[in-house]
């Protein structure tokens, strides 16, 4: 994994976007054996009917989520398990997306100086469904990136609460 050791800053944390992107890309590269690419154009409105979420608490409080279409999540599970796509079931899909999210969150915090020790992760949760929105009650910045996984969009969002 590429060490970044980005120091924490306090201006909306937009400078963390490349770190978040790298942390996510490394998870896909090392654990799924594939590269994520940046879309040529923003994938606005692309369906996300499954979302993995991991809470962060401590020096950084927030939620890291990865949303995508269920087909993309099934392909993640297939690649992680090394089995055919047709043999992947719903429990494996949720488990795989939760783990991807967990590893992306862990990899991200370990790249930000001081967060490795000062920030804990919650167990991952996975939400599925065709029509849902996630609302944060905290007025807080969020870092969002869109990437393509095997030509399918995935959305990574870090909502920072404090």
């Amino acid at each position, binding site marked *: *994994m590429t060490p970044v050791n980005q120091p924490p800053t306090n201006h909306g944390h937009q400078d963390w976007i490349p770190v978040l992107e790298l942390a996510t890309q*490394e*998870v896909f*590269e*090392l*654990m799924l054996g594939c590269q994520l690419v940046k879309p040529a154009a923003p994938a606005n409105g692309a369906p996300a009917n499954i979302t993995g979420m991991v809470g962060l608490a401590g020096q950084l409080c927030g939620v890291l989520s990865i949303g995508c279409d269920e087909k993309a999540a099934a392909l993640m*599970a297939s690649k*992680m*398990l*090394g089995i055919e796509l047709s043999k992947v079931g719903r*429990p*494996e899909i949720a*488990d*795989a997306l*939760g*783990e991807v999210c*967990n*590893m992306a*969150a*862990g*990899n991200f915090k*370990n790249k930000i100086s001081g967060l*490795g*020790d000062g920030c804990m*992760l919650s*167990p991952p949760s996975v939400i599925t469904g065709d029509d849902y929105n996630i609302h944060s009650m905290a007025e807080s910045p969020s870092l969002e990136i869109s990437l393509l996984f095997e030509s399918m969009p995935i959305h990574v969002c870090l909502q920072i609460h404090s």
Partner: protein
Amino acid sequence: MEETNHVSGKPKHFPPFGDEQILMPIRALIVDDSSVMRKIVDRSLRQAGIEISQLFEAGNGAEALGVVQDNKVDLILCDINMPVMDGLEFIKQLATVDNAKGVPVVMITTEGSEAHVVQALACGARGYIRKPFTADQVKEHVIPILAGKP
């Protein structure tokens, strides 16, 4: 005294052959609350050239304690963040299980900070692998432990 294989009584490893250690098949216990991650760890061990004669799986530390009380294992790979009983508590309690005395534990976890590494090693872990990881990293950390190197 040289560590012996629990099944055959033969030495657990042979002298180096070229750059490779020829290892006996091992009985491995993989502890992680994610079944997907358990499969990945299993596959990484095999890709690292480690032959597994028997594979045990557990979803948390409490289940893993039950496994080692009833079965002999040669290697334990364990996550830290798990429900019911986490990995650090598991290795503390593992010391009280006669069946598991001297069995090396390698932590595989997203908690990759220096403090976590120190804490895990203080609890008795012999190695530490950060997620995400490659099969090469598993090989690099696990083979020397199985080969009896400090």
